[in-house]
């Protein structure tokens, strides 16, 4: 098991390297192909100031005129080891993990990411718990009482949940609750307010996912209830309730947890629509703002962080699967 995890971690590092290569290619090389020059890239950083000396300093500092592989090498070294920027006059040290330097707000990327991450993590965890619990619960009830009123109502709501986007559900909830205060309050400063303020965003985000999970759980449970081993459990005289959760749900839940891990990983990389809808200063809002301002280093940082979350979620899910399903061979 341990060697399996170690091997997966090594593979994950390789995968993340590939991701850096691709994002780097997209943000630094594609613009050059499209006719940009190191000078015009620098101009994008400096903004309206078109002083050639200042441009020259920026090009030197970020090495825009170095060969591309050298720039990429510097970037990766920066992430694992940190790097030092020099414009010939002063040195700016950027500690590992160094994702570069945003010139729009004159800050290093990594501390910016760190300051935004708690918001997104809070959103993801709260909503994740909500949608997992309610989705699975209503899915199980629907499957067990297939064709009943409860099944039809919850599947109807689920259909709405799948169809309605967050930017519709969010404002609707706000309107219904009478301008709920959704300002982000850090968990450590006031846990109660943290939960109270985030509750509406949680519900708005969880609604669509819960709907999806309810439908998946229902389908999985219906499949599982038709499995031979469930019939065997009944033939042994196992009580119906126990048949449901010990035999049917156990096998129906495994793929659900897998998808939950992936979804949670994706939301951790930034719940863009939700954060924009409620103006929550998380990674998603940061990404949107940075894209609008052509702030490439920040966009790259968010992209890599999101990729990191996905890769980690993948590993966690694989390990979980190996623990839950004894048939999985750790090859």
């Amino acid at each position: 098991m341990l060697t399996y995890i170690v091997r997966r971690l090594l593979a994950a590092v390789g995968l993340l390297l590939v991701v850096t290569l691709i994002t780097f290619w997209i943000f630094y090389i594609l613009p050059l192909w499209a006719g940009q020059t190191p000078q015009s890239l620098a101009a994008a950083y400096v903004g309206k100031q078109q002083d050639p000396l200042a441009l020259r300093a920026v090009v030197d500092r970020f090495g825009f005129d170095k060969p591309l592989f050298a720039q990429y090498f510097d970037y990766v070294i920066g992430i694992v080891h940190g790097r030092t920027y020099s414009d010939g006059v002063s040195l700016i040290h950027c500690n590992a993990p160094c994702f570069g330097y945003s010139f729009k707000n004159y800050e290093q990327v990594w501390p910016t990411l760190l300051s935004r991450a708690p918001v997104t993590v809070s959103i993801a965890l709260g909503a994740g718990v909500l949608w997992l619990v309610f989705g699975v619960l209503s899915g199980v009830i629907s499957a067990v009482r297939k064709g009943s009123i409860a099944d039809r109502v919850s599947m109807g709501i689920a259909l709405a949940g799948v169809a309605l986007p967050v930017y519709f559900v969010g404002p609707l909830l706000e309107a219904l609750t009478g301008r709920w205060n959704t300002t982000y309050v850090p968990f450590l400063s006031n846990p109660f307010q943290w939960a109270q303020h985030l509750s509406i965003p949680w519900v708005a985000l969880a609604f669509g996912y819960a709907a999806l999970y309810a439908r998946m759980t229902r389908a999985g449970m219906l499949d599982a209830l038709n499995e031979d081993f469930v019939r065997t459990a009944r033939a042994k005289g196992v009580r119906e309730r126990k048949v449901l959760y010990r035999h049917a749900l156990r096998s129906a839940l495994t793929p659900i947890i897998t998808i939950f891990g992936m979804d949670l990983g994706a939301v951790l990389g930034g719940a863009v629509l939700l954060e924009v809808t409620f103006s929550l200063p998380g990674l998603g809002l940061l990404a949107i703002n940075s894209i609008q301002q052509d702030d490439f280093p920040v966009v790259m940082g968010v992209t890599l962080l999101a990729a990191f979350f996905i890769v980690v979620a993948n590993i966690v899910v694989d390990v979980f699967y190996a623990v839950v399903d004894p048939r999985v061979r750790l090859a």
Partner: protein
Amino acid sequence: MSGRHSRPNQPSNWFQPARVASEPEGRPQPRGAEPERDGPAFLEVRDLNVHFPTEDGLVKAVDGLSFTLRRGQTLGIVGESGSGKSVTSLALLGLHKRPDKRGRGGARIRGEIRLDGEDLVAAPPERLETLRGEKLAMVFQDPMSAMHPYYTVGEQIAEAFLVHNRASKAVARKRAIEMLDRVGIPQPDARVDDFPHQFSGGMRQRAMIAMALVCNPQLLIADEPTTALDVTVQAQILDLMRDLQQEFNSALIVITHDLGVVAELADDIMVMYAGKAVEYGPAKAVFTDPEHPYTWGLLGSMPRLDRAVQERLLPIPGNPPSLINVPSGCAFHPRCGYAQMAGGHCRNEVPQLVDNGQGTLVSCHLWPQQRRGLFAEHIAPKL
């Protein structure tokens, strides 16, 4: 002409097939089993109907089935796919889905299933839950899918024990090891912690049998217990089931499409077609002197190792009938090569299950003498 078809209907009280020449020779009988042979029936099924309402119509999967079984006795139920064998066995265990409050879906079960005098059709679901696994148990066809992939073999056997016994997990585990040893799993104290996928097909079926027998059930139903296994393992499993049955003196029902499987194992054989019994009698008689054309067909389509290879198997022409629109009269008449010999009766009249005078019940419009003549002349030489 009319006399031929005015045979008395089967008496409404339960008919017990006479046990003439029903003892397979050379088969050791358990001591103490003999007195019970003539005792009251342990399992009595009378006029059992299992119907499934569907959108296309009413599926009559089992239609008016009756049989009895005593302790220590084995009944083989034989028939093609869709003849109602498995539906019967699931009905015995009460494993069919019940219709909802508005009477939709599920299975409509009518008739009587008396186990030790207790009617299982009328029993509440909770009562059936208590009986299942304890008094009646089942071995399923495909032991790979019939065992939960996430629990060890030992856990699954122990679970069956714990449902019906107040015992600690350690005791249940010990009992599981005991049962695995009893069904011939080598190194049972190590294999008890294996998962089903770590067992071979034959071992899984043995483990299924161990799971079914863990509470010493008085009635064991084996639904195609050897179909998923290769031939050598089949023989081992059949031997094992026979030994265990004699040891526990339980009643055994073996369901199969293969007459060869039950020929040796069963005391009685019931051949089913389209939800009805077409021939029901002592195993030896049904196997050596079958009287129903459908039974002939089953025998003819059975490969035999003691025959020359170049001889062809004789498949039964046609397909199993739809259970929604069952053919009129005798359900087998569209596939029967002798239907014209009884005039239009085969198409128009449902034949009754009638004693042929030698202890076998046959439902066929042909005269018994006619059937025997046909079998001796046309069928037996080809078998």
